[in-house]
């Protein structure tokens, strides 16, 4: 199981690279959205390891909050023009 968690942490570092480097604002928004989906995967693997359903509750609420945050950022980006 620790191999899978290490691979997911590697994915998170790739997303953080895109958050830091991404030339435009929607690049960063996409990377943050993907990071939220990866955290749901973390919660699923932890619930397999510990056999507790607490982590699945965290995963469901995290997916909800990530979706709302993505929609809010998209609506914010739509209202103004970027020159890049």
């Amino acid at each position, binding site marked *: 199981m620790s191999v899978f968690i290490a691979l997911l942490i590697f994915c998170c570092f790739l997303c953080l690279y895109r958050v830091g480097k991404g030339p435009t604002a929607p690049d960063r928004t996409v990377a943050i959205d993907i990071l939220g989906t990866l955290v749901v995967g973390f919660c699923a693997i932890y619930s*397999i390891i510990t056999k507790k*359903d607490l982590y699945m509750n965290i995963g469901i609420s995290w997916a909800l909050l990530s979706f709302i945050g993505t929609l809010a950022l998209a609506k914010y980006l739509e209202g103004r023009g970027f020159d890049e």
Partner: protein
Amino acid sequence: MSETIGLILLIVGIMFDVVGCIGLVRLPDIYNRLQAATKCVTLGTCMILLSVLFYTGIGPISMKALVCIWFVLMTSPTGAHAIARAAHRSGIRLWEGSVMDKYAEDHEGAEDKT
């Protein structure tokens, strides 16, 4: 037997996640990155959540995993569509190698702000 199926689903899901995140870094354009990352990571996370069902059997954990699968499958394409529309409307150009832009053809006049 069911743990073997769960392990196979877990490995395939993590492979999809890694490939999606490599695509997020390597592809040249916001729209290409959005396509690769959203599809691969959504499918990978759904396979990880499905492997929870095979690992733990019928119970509270697997039912919550099924709810979470439904939720991720509903919300992730909606968020991706919203981001792509916002990016196109805020004037971000396509990659030079792109061959067509149907959205701009449909909204000519109202869309060329830049």
